[in-house]
């Protein structure tokens, strides 16, 4: 897919790339209805740990994200509690 997108934290670029590649391949199976398992779990865990620790250093982003999650929960598809 050509160039790869940067991560919020440069130190996570590599683990992001590895995970994104795995996901792209898995997504083809998902589209065909062949897989409902998260087959990239290990790569995602490595990448996620990297991003999380980078975000914890950025207090503003972290706090704003927590607020947004409270207002529009993931489980609810990011729908706002009040509006929609």
């Amino acid at each position: 897919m050509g160039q790869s997108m940067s991560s919020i934290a440069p130190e996570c670029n590599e683990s992001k790339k590895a995970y994104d590649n795995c996901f792209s391949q898995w997504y083809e199976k998902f589209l065909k209805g062949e897989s409902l398992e998260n087959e990239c779990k290990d790569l995602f865990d490595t990448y996620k740990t990297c991003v999380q620790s980078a975000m914890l250093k950025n207090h503003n982003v972290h706090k704003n994200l927590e607020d947004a999650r409270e207002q529009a929960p993931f489980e609810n598809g990011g729908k706002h509690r009040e509006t929609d």
Partner: protein
Amino acid sequence: MKFFDSKSSFPYSWEQVTRANWNKYPNEITTHVETVDVLRREIDPETHILRTERIIGVRQPVPLWLTKLLRTDGRAFCREVSEIDLKKGTLTMRTQNLDHSTVLSVMETIVYQRDPSSPSNNTLFTQRASFHSGINFKKISQSVEDFSLQRFIQNSKLGRAAFDQVLENTQ
């Protein structure tokens, strides 16, 4: 409060569109989008909906009067939650800005839907966005909302052009 609504379609199957959506960035057109990170991704065990949370970092010049109100250097972050429903043939993305949300809150919902009349080569697109400034002076809050709406329209055009290009390249 201001709103923006738009409807169109893409001459590609829904599967192609959702695949390209993951590969939209980086591209040569929407260079203001600097970073994209997946924060959470799960498959709902009952509905089989693939749900993803991402944080998107953007950088765009902001006029001086707004720089002071928003206390920004032009860098900002958005949170996006997307849902892919294979059975219904829908990809729904809800995005909101994370910074300065009391001064300006922007919420966008995009739906890509399989076109029932030509599922193999067309996907329907709907976009809705709201712009709300919590500033107590009406004149200022309206200026902020107006600026944001215009910027949003510009960015949407860029986003469309970029997505068309990505789709063409994945053919």
